[in-house]
């Protein structure tokens, strides 16, 4: 036993069997490596926890900012079709003909709604809100024109509509106030890009941190790698446990990130709903949900693999039996 030439198997059925054997061996070694790597990660809970925390925090930051941005978009979503065209009537147009115009405009297909603000009502409102009631009372005549506010239907370009209304005989001036919408959208876009840039940097950081962790793991097992290579271990065989180590660090880090985000949302939920109530808004904070959490864990695992691959491809080739 334990000596003598290995029997050579030949023939088609034998080679099929060997292919199946090799697949089984490959699969076995994968589960073996995965389990062994997990055992090693768990064997030093202190340093593993630190690694998980570092990765978790680095991933939680952009994730939380992204969620904040989504929530901000939800808030602004309720103002999403605020494009409102103000039609200031000619001074000669009285309230009745303004109402007529308002009627005809509100029947149009490309108009969502049209609202008449009569000049007297406008003046009253101005007097009440501005605190210039005395001044207003002293005016000989009302300087304000009748006003029709038009909200374009969804999908209609408000600028085109404004141009059309400006040509109406009754209309003195048609004003489309979109500047603030554009500003808001630009601010949101800026925020989105900042989050993306920050996220990109932190993701790169995570990959490098993991790469370095795996590099240290490779260094500490240098002798073992040499021996495995001496008795015929392939590069893939040597690589496998380290890739799994990276995977476990990444998955753990992703889970920590999901927990951190959940904790932050829980922490903020009370004040936010209080604030929303004060503004009489039904707004509630959107969480990351189960899918989002899983995505974080998945992303973590992917980053872990990437970092491990980086370390393994850089450092494993250099370790050869001497």
């Amino acid at each position: 036993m334990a000596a003598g030439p290995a029997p050579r198997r030949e023939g088609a059925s034998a080679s099929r069997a060997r292919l199946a054997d090799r697949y089984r061996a490959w699969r076995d070694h994968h589960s073996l490596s995965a389990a062994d790597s997990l055992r090693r990660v768990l064997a030093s809970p202190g340093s593993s926890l630190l690694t998980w925390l570092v990765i978790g925090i680095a991933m939680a930051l952009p994730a939380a900012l992204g969620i904040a941005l989504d929530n901000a978009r939800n808030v602004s979503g309720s103002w999403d079709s605020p494009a409102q065209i103000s039609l200031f009537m000619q001074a000669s147009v009285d309230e009745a003909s303004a109402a007529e115009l308002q009627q005809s405009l509100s029947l149009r297909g490309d108009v969502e709604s049209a609202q008449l603000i009569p000049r007297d009502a406008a003046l009253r409102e101005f007097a009440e809100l501005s605190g210039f009631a005395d001044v207003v009372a002293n005016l000989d005549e009302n300087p304000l024109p009748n006003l029709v506010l038009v909200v374009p239907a969804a999908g209609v370009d408000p600028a085109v509509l404004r141009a059309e209304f400006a040509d109406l005989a009754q209309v003195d001036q048609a004003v489309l106030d979109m500047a603030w919408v554009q500003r808001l959208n630009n601010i949101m876009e800026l925020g989105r890009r900042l989050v993306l840039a920050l996220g990109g940097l932190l993701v790169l950081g995570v990959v490098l941190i993991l790469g370095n962790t795996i590099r240290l793991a490779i260094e500490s097992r240098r002798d073992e790698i040499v021996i495995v290579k001496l008795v015929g271990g392939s590069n893939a065989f040597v690589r496998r446990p380290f890739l799994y180590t990276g995977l476990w660090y990444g998955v753990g880090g992703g889970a920590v990130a999901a927990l951190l985000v959940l904790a932050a949302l829980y922490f903020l939920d009370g004040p936010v709903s209080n604030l929303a109530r004060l503004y009489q808004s039904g707004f509630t904070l959107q969480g990351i949900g189960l899918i989002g959490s899983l995505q974080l864990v998945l992303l973590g695992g992917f980053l872990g693999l990437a970092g491990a691959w980086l370390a393994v491809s850089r450092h494993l080739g250099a370790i050869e039996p001497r």
Partner: protein
Amino acid sequence: MIQFERVSKRYEEGHDALREISLEIARDELVFLTGHSGAGKSTLLRLIMLMDRPTRGKVRVDGRDLSTIGSRGIPLHRRQIGVVFQNHQLLYDRNVFDNVALPLVIAGYDQREIGRRVRAALDKVGLLARERALPVTLSGGEQQRVGIARAVVGRPRILLADEPTGNLDPNLSAEIMSLFEAFNQVGVTVLIASHDLALISRLQHRIITLRDGQLMGGAA
């Protein structure tokens, strides 16, 4: 089984480790390789293991020119050769069983077959009772026998040993050598590098002598 054709090996720093070595080792042969340290014994073994490539000349193992084996083929090549090292090269965080099983795990045997073969190999070297022991708890001679069990567990056709008795007393050394002879008797080609002339000249086997990288005798 092993052929060297005018093989030279010059290291980058200009040192000639082997010069124009030609030799042939037949299947079923046990051959000793001797010479002072630095004479080129280890280099010769390294060339067979593909841990190094010759600067000039050809090395053949089992009829195959080793220069045709690329880096991807090296693991498969090494799996058909068992190696025993002077410093054992064991994994000290794993027990005896796992150390011996390593080549089989690498080659992808299933668990039952691994168990069977590892125990057979340990039985052969007289360590069956110590399969759960960690290498550090074993004596030098026992560690070397674990190394031998690991070298033969995959049933290689070639067994190489680099100073396998280097740190052992004469009795243990003789014991180790008789193990190698036993493997040779069942058809394994054995090549042992050793400078223990007193021991190896007592055994009736061919002795190849190297001096400063040159062949002094025993090549035929």
